[in-house]
């Protein structure tokens, strides 16, 4: 039985915006519109979707880098969404983030040692030699040479910098790592190194990952369970095998049909979606996907589909299955 680490319940993020003549009409941009999921201890939970679907906002809300508008994030019996101040600050050690851009996320004015040491200092590891030793150990663990600890981050390559970012995220022994597109800024050859490193570290340290990406191949490789997001909502949530072998939602089907196959002999029918993703400031009524859905029915235009568990562990929000 998987042990739940974090439960996200009905999480929402609305940004206020103005529209209409003179900005008189107040509207909310629904970046994330009521999503719920559970992260089990030791698993990798993939969050996938187009840009603007709210996947990064979800990760940022878990990190409290963006304050949630509504909803709960339950961790060890506490609702993190409502924590503030010092209490929140000390809980941060359990959640750490790996950022997409390994260039901008490391301070150009600090040595690698200072960057990785920073979380230890912030969370009160006073002993200097202990800090030193933990930084060295962490650098070796992520595949960096600890002799280079006094170099500055700009002296390293993109892949090496991402390793520094990973070391910084891991040095406090966190429970959950939120990886927000950790490989999408890297070369493909480096991507695989980083993905493998993340998997090795998970095996050794028992980490839980929330892995945010738009690349379905990477997500398939690393995740145990996957949630597909569209316009701030989860369309389908299932185990990796079941999602890729038997996608239920028309959106997931379209995404999976678009993954290139490296064998020219195999032909697959591609489902090409028409039109653009609608604006989250003015999302379509009913199912948000109905404007582009090849199987849209009348009910899709008016009624928002409930999320149902079609098979054990395979959730889908689509009227086709009601």
């Amino acid at each position, binding site marked *: 039985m998987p042990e739940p680490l974090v439960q996200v319940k009905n999480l929402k993020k609305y940004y206020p915006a103005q529209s209409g003549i003179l900005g008189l009409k107040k509207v909310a941009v629904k970046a994330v519109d009521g999503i719920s999921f559970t992260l089990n201890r030791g698993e990798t939970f993939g969050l996938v979707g187009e840009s603007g679907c709210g996947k990064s906002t979800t990760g940022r809300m878990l*990190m*409290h*880098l963006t304050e949630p508008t509504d909803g709960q994030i339950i961790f060890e019996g506490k609702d993190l969404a409502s924590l503030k101040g010092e209490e929140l*600050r*000390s809980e*941060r*050690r359990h959640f*750490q*983030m790996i*950022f997409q*851009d390994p260039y*901008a*996320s*490391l*301070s*150009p*004015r600090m040595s690698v040692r200072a960057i990785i040491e*920073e*979380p230890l200092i*912030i*969370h009160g590891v006073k002993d200097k030699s202990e800090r030193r030793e933990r930084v060295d150990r962490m*650098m070796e663990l*992520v*595949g*960096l*040479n600890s002799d*280079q600890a006094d*170099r*500055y981050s700009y*002296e*390293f*390559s993109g*892949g*090496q910098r991402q*390793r520094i*970012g990973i070391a*910084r995220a891991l040095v*406090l022994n966190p429970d959950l790592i939120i990886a927000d597109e950790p490989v999408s800024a890297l070369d*493909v*050859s*480096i*991507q*695989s*190194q980083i*993905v*493998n490193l993340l998997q090795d570290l998970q095996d050794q340290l028992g980490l839980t990952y929330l892995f945010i990406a738009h690349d379905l*191949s*990477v997500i*398939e*490789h690393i995740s145990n369970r996957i949630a597909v997001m569209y316009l701030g909502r989860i369309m389908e949530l299932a185990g990796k095998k079941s999602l*890729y072998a038997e996608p239920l939602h028309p959106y997931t089907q379209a995404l999976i049909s678009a*993954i*290139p*196959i*490296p064998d020219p002999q195999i032909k697959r029918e591609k489902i090409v979606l028409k039109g653009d993703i609608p604006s989250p400031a003015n999302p379509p009524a009913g199912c948000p996907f109905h404007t582009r859905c090849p199987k849209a029915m009348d009910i899709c235009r008016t009624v928002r589909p409930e999320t149902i568990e079609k098979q054990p562990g395979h959730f889908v929000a689509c009227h086709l299955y009601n």
Partner: protein
Amino acid sequence: MATEKQIETMEWAGTSPLPARKSPFSRFMKKLIRQRLAFVSGIGIIGLIIIAIIGPSIIPYKITTVDYQYVLQGPSARHWLGTDPYGRDLFSRIIAGTRISLSVGFFSVLAGAAAGTFLGLLAGFYGKWVDSIIMRICDILFAFPGMILAIGIVAILGPGIMNVVIAVSIFNIPSFARIVRSSTLSARAALFVEAERSIGAKNRRLIWRHIFPETISTIIVYFTMRIGTAILAAASLSFLGLGAQPPSPEWGAMLSSGRDYLDTSPFVTLFPGLAIFFTVLVFNLFGDGLRDVLDPKIKD
């Protein structure tokens, strides 16, 4: 599917050698030397500082020695730059005045920069009402022309070189606050600052350890440029009789005492004026060059 083939273990990236490092200071010096004018100005500034330190002990005459036989004399072998209406040696007085002008310029900008930087960091980091209050106060100070403001402050505090320092530093506060605020806004949004926040860094640590260093280069450039202006402002206030009082060899005060003899003995005002001109010029040129050197957009 594709992934199994794509993702293979590759050699560890971390062990590859890094390019030889150059210290940030040596790169800075290399760029500075290329800025000819700024480099020469820098040497001029160093020269002025040396004069300010050792000047008073090497001058040929005491600054208060009056010699009524040599009143308003032109430049000669005895008095290199001539004498003033009391027969005091102008060369000695100008050399001695260097220390006053440089320290007035330096300390008034230092105090203004310190207060302005602090306010700018607060305004930029906390935003909202903190920002509104600080920036509105700055707007009020900005609404006065700088000299009028300084004259007003000296009028309240009374004349004297110390009060000139206070007045000039107050009129430096809002410009530093505004310039630091804008660099703070961009630094606060930087991803690595956000990363620090996500780790759990306290606001004080974010401001002083991560945001403040990002603003330093802007502050240094502006600091250098303001010193020239501050020296000019202090000399103007002394010229108006609000700053250094006679017999102080402050350059502005010397200009003031020589102005009645402009048509008969122009050198009495010319040489202190040239001293002010030269000092302000080297600081401004150096500041301009520093800005180009420290601008990360200009590559070496």
